[in-house]
């Protein structure tokens, strides 16, 4: 399946790009699997969204999803 992955704030800077377009096998079933597939162990306080809705590392991912990873938010 094909997934668009976006990165924000210091994660984007640390990774060195703002997005990945990835094609993954059935072994990647969750948001956490996707991060581990791309970057190894997830950092503390990693936040995620699937299709622009807050998600957890155990949230399932599906073909065509837009997944985002970011640090804790600091607006307001």
């Amino acid at each position, binding site marked *: 399946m094909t997934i668009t992955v976006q990165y*924000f*704030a210091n994660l984007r800077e640390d990774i060195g790009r703002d997005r990945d377009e990835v094609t993954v096998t059935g072994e990647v079933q969750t948001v956490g699997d996707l991060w581990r597939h791309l970057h190894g162990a997830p950092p503390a306080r990693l936040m995620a*969204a699937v299709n622009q*809705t807050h998600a957890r590392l155990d949230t399932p991912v599906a073909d065509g999803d837009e997944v*985002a990873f970011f*640090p804790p938010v*600091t*607006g*307001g």
Partner: protein
Amino acid sequence: MAVRLFNHAFDPWTLVRERERRLPLEGFGACAVFAGRMRDFNEDQDVRALFLEHYPGMTEREMERIVAEAESRWPSITCEVAHRVGAVEPAETLVLVAVWSAHRVAARDACSEILERLKHEAPFWKRERLADGSQRWVEKNTPGH
């Protein structure tokens, strides 16, 4: 409900007044407002400028969800919420939450709740430029409850 993102400076009181022109104020006896501005200090250091990164699309959805959930919890309220994105100078407004209601308790409680949820759920990230030219990401918001 009205939710807005600004990529330039805006005057919160003009927004509030313009919204009130379209409200039947005889029914809204109470208005609670919070306006947050960029300070020129944070964690004991001088801050010269701020950049507010956001997640286009999700940010608007989150702001709308937060306000819709408040309007569902306090059915008597109506809200105006605005947030700044991009490059910000000291003293410019970062966030505005205005809530009108028939009674003061609902207006006040909903205003606080929307602000706290914006700070903890809406995808914005602050990067500060310090006096020595270095930059840093703000790691977390100060607790408000």
